[in-house]
């Protein structure tokens, strides 16, 4: 390899890489089919907004109050109720996963309710904590509003003395797809930037075509630029596909400018591509490169970026690690550009951080490649 930059040489190399992409159907799959699949799965499959939940109801009291409360559960829009007298069949259904919780209206409930009390018992299936928490709080809600309505009939002040009126800016309907779309874009760009790039160069090493390239007068800068530019464009292309589908099919708003989105996505692709180059330069084997890329790019991007789990809730040492994950700086600006609008005060520090990581990874990758050659 020689130093220096020759435009004709560079163009030849760029054409070679671009043809390699266009001729391989799998790049098409990853750049265009994967984004579509992800957006559809996130749109339909990953629904965190709980619908009707199956529960069991064991009414062990025959009084009027117990019947009325059982009726309130039957009519609740949150629950699909299976009612029995004895609790045993419901316990078996809970273990088998057929119901997610059991509401018990115990013997003596109506008498206690007449005296101003009336406790019920709720058993949930803690093996799915999310649903269990939902069942517990909504069952209590059904009981409390039933009790409040009953108290109001008797002339007791019923409204809770202090009410909190919540409003959710940017996403008043609280649709979970609003925050899943930026996540889908992050996944696709990580796949193309890090995984695909790592595989492509590892393959050159594995097949021995890397030696052939080294024997040419191609310079290091030309080599890296010709590898990176096509995948950069591919990443931007699939980000665009993701965005268009999210807007057209799922009605997710893009309140910021397309330019801001483009700048943010480009800033993320640079560290992603740098990491891909670095992985391929340190492993020569496609299988190992793919696994390392999954481990260093994909998993942290999913788990430590704040996309799925809240960073401030993590233990301190994990929070410290998240600062080294480029995707951490991608998620807040992406969420903002979609849901809120342009906010360059928030974007610029994150963009700077991503570019900083890009510089670091590219420097390391160039060094690793030099060492390989020597």
């Amino acid at each position, binding site marked *: 390899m020689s130093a220096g930059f020759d435009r004709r040489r560079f163009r030849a190399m760029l054409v070679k890489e671009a043809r390699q992409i266009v001729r*391989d159907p*799998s790049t098409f799959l990853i750049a265009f*089919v*994967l984004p579509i699949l992800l957006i559809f*799965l996130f749109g339909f*499959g*990953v*629904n965190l907004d709980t619908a009707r939940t199956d529960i069991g109801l064991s009414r062990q009291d025959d009084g009027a109050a117990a019947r009325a409360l059982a009726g309130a559960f039957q009519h609740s829009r949150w629950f699909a109720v299976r009612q029995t007298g004895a609790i045993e069949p419901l316990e078996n259904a809970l*273990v*088998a996963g057929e119901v997610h919780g059991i509401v018990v209206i115990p013997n003596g409930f109506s008498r206690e309710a007449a005296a101003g009390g009336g*406790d019920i*018992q*709720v058993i*949930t*299936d*803690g*093996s799915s*904590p*999310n*649903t*269990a*928490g939902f069942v*517990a709080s909504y069952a209590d809600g059904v009981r*409390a509003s039933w009790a*409040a309505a*009953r108290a109001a009939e008797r002339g007791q*002040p*019923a409204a809770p003395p*202090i*009410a*909190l009126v*919540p409003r*959710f*800016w*940017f*996403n*008043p309907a609280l*649709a979970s797809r609003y*925050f899943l779309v930026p996540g889908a874009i992050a996944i696709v760009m990580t796949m193309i930037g890090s*995984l695909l790039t790592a*595989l492509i160069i590892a*393959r050159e090493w594995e097949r021995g075509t890397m030696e052939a390239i080294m024997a040419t007068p191609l310079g290091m800068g030309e080599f890296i630029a010709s590898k990176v530019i096509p995948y950069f464009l591919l990443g931007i292309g699939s980000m665009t596909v993701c965005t268009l589908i999210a807007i057209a099919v799922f009605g997710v708003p893009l309140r910021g400018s397309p330019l801001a989105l483009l700048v943010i996505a480009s800033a993320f692709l640079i560290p992603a591509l740098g990491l891909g180059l670095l992985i391929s330069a340190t492993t020569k*084997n*496609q*299988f190992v490169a*793919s696994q390392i890329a999954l*481990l260093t790019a994909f*998993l942290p991007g999913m*788990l430590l970026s704040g996309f799925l789990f*809240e960073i*401030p*809730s*993590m233990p301190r*040492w*994990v929070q410290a690690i998240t600062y080294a994950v480029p995707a951490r700086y991608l998620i*807040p600006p992406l969420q*903002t550009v979609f*849901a*809120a609008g342009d*906010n360059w005060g928030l974007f610029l520090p994150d963009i700077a951080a991503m570019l900083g990581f890009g510089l670091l990874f590219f420097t390391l990758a160039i060094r690793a490649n030099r060492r390989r050659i020597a």
Partner: protein
Amino acid sequence: MNGRRILAMVTKELWAVLRDPHARLVLIAPPLMQLILFSAAATLEVKNVTIGVWDRDNGAASAEFINQLAGSPNIRRIVRIDSPKALRTAIDDQQVIGAIIFDQAFSRDVAAHRPATAQAIFDGRRSNAAQIVAGYLGTIAASVGATIRPETSVGGQTVVSHWFNPNLDYLWFVMPALVVTICSLSALSVTVQSVARERELGTFDQLMVSPLRLHEILIGKLTPPILIGLFNTTLYLMVIPLFYGVPLVGSVLLLYLAAFASLLAVVGVGMMVSALSQTQQQAFLGMFLVTVPMTLLSGFAAPVDNMPGWLQIIAEANPQKHFLVISEGLFLKGMPAAAVLRELWPLIPIAAVTLTVSTLLFRSRME
């Protein structure tokens, strides 16, 4: 069928995977890393929250409210806000996840026995976390109300007990789900490469001219991924109860049976991808393309019950969905054999279909 030939083929395939020391490491290190990362990061709680307060009331009731806010274990910091502009900036720049506004009449309303309302604004960009914080604040509001005006409280309580996971520890749900993910992921990543690698290296033709019969080649190719899947399952079954204290109360034998049945179905899928791929790169990307929907539709990311009906039917064909129900059931609930088998039997027709299709694809590749 020739036992010696199959054994030779299995040995050769195992060597192909385990020969490279990097590859050996890669089969064990990522599963362990994944376990550590998930256990550290996965939480549904929203802790260490910063809340904004705009107190235009400065009365007794708002003071009591702020007092109780400061005492909440999930709230780390309270930021004072004094104008609509400051409110907008605090939310826009994500300095706070939400803010409470007490208007001038708040304490007066409470004192006059009128229903008082406080406004709360949340950052809907993080809709999930915002909703959880809204829940916390709602509870605090009710408790402030009960502190100031005890006579409005209505009798009766809901006594909640969470079976199988008394503290609703999210980790207890995540760990059994990770067993499912790692079991199929490690088997898939080996299966998809098995044919694609030989084809890329040009040794596939050598295999074709050997005296091995079709089913012998397939058994030879599919045994190592199943062994590796079972190996990683075993690794997790040891580490999870030991280091993370998640109870494994059900039958381990049934768990292995379910792992084996789901592995049969999964390696069938992997072999289809491998037979369709010309290169290792295609095989790897193809694997990613089947893994993502399989994981997302398993019930790990979101409950299957929340999906639309047509997607729930598709999820029934997903081996990971069935294995997930069984793994959660056996780990935490001690699910009885009858219930396990009811969830397990669909794996057999699924495996039959994936293995048959992959055999047909493989055969068409040979000609």
